């Protein structure tokens, strides 16, 4: 295999996302159920179990199978990030927080994940279509600029005061 990412990298990324979620939900524990940070810690431990299983059955499981169970784990962690985003927006009706979460957590994590998945697929000889790559870069630039403009600390302070 070309020197690059192993499929387990996606599990590692998923673990880090769950841990980040755990810490963020702990900071926002007056807005989310108390057990949520601990559940995310357990989810991160499950991801560690994924890597351990891969390590012990490295030769038994093919790369195809290892990729899919690690990738699904990453998808689950991303789905949780988006779910928290939706929870703030739809259930708690905290639009400013939902917007901040979207710009500072959801979008960057999804973009980073897509970057690594595209890198992995490129190394495996299945590159993303050029149009999709360009669209992702454009989306990243637009979103990054929007976050910088609309989520400036001053603007956010005023918004939070209003809510």
């Amino acid at each position, binding site marked *: 295999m070309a020197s690059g990412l192993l499929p*387990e990298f996606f599990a590692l990324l998923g673990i880090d996302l769950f841990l980040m979620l755990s810490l963020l939900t702990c900071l926002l524990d007056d807005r989310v159920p108390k057990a949520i940070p601990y559940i995310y*810690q357990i989810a991160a431990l499950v991801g560690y179990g994924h890597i351990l299983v891969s390590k012990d059955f*490295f030769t038994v499981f093919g790369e195809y199978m290892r990729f899919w169970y690690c990738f699904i784990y990453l998808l689950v962690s991303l789905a949780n990030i988006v779910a928290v985003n939706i929870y703030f927006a739809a259930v708690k009706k905290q639009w400013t927080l939902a917007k901040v979460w979207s710009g500072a957590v959801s979008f960057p994590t999804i973009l980073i994940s897509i970057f690594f998945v595209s890198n992995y697929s490129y190394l495996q000889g299945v590159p993303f279509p050029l149009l999709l790559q360009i669209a992702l870069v454009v989306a990243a630039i637009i979103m990054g600029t929007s976050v910088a403009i609309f989520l400036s600390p001053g603007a956010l302070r005023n918004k939070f005061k209003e809510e």
Partner: protein
Amino acid sequence: MNLKAIPFKRSAKLLALLLTSMLIATVSAITYLQLTMSSTVAVYKSNVYFVIGSDDGTKGLTVTLDGTNTTATLTGLRAYPNASFTYSDPVKVRNNATAIPNPQIRLAPDVNPSANPEDFVYVKFLLNATAVGDRRWLNYTSNGSTWSNTGTTAWVTIPFSTQWSIAVITKATAGASENHSVTITIKVDVD
């Protein structure tokens, strides 16, 4: 969010979660690193192997190959007193690849002979490449009391889908005793 406003209980909870998070992240990263450092080595069929030559079954020679064609045993090679005797094609070495990169091969001594130096003048091995300049000699000579050899040959590139014979030339001393024999083991190194 004003971090100073976070009550102690919440800070302790956050600290505990932070510590466990660091632990989980570190252990996972180390395990992943161990995974990247481990490597799998699979056995593949070699493209370079021996092929029985046309001299097999003639001049008393019997050539046998192992299951993978990577070891050739030549038995019944003859040496005549005071006369050079040549097996021009007892065994071949073949590069069965169908494309470059082409491997390099060379002849190298493996187990040096010790028996009956008084009965032999030489046993020579010639890697009979198509181009004269690519031919390689590995010669075992006897001074009557000990054997010596010319050492490992220089590398030579064997093109794909090509086979070269390894010729054997023998010569016994004028007063050699009949049925005395010597065993020589050589290697064909592949790079």
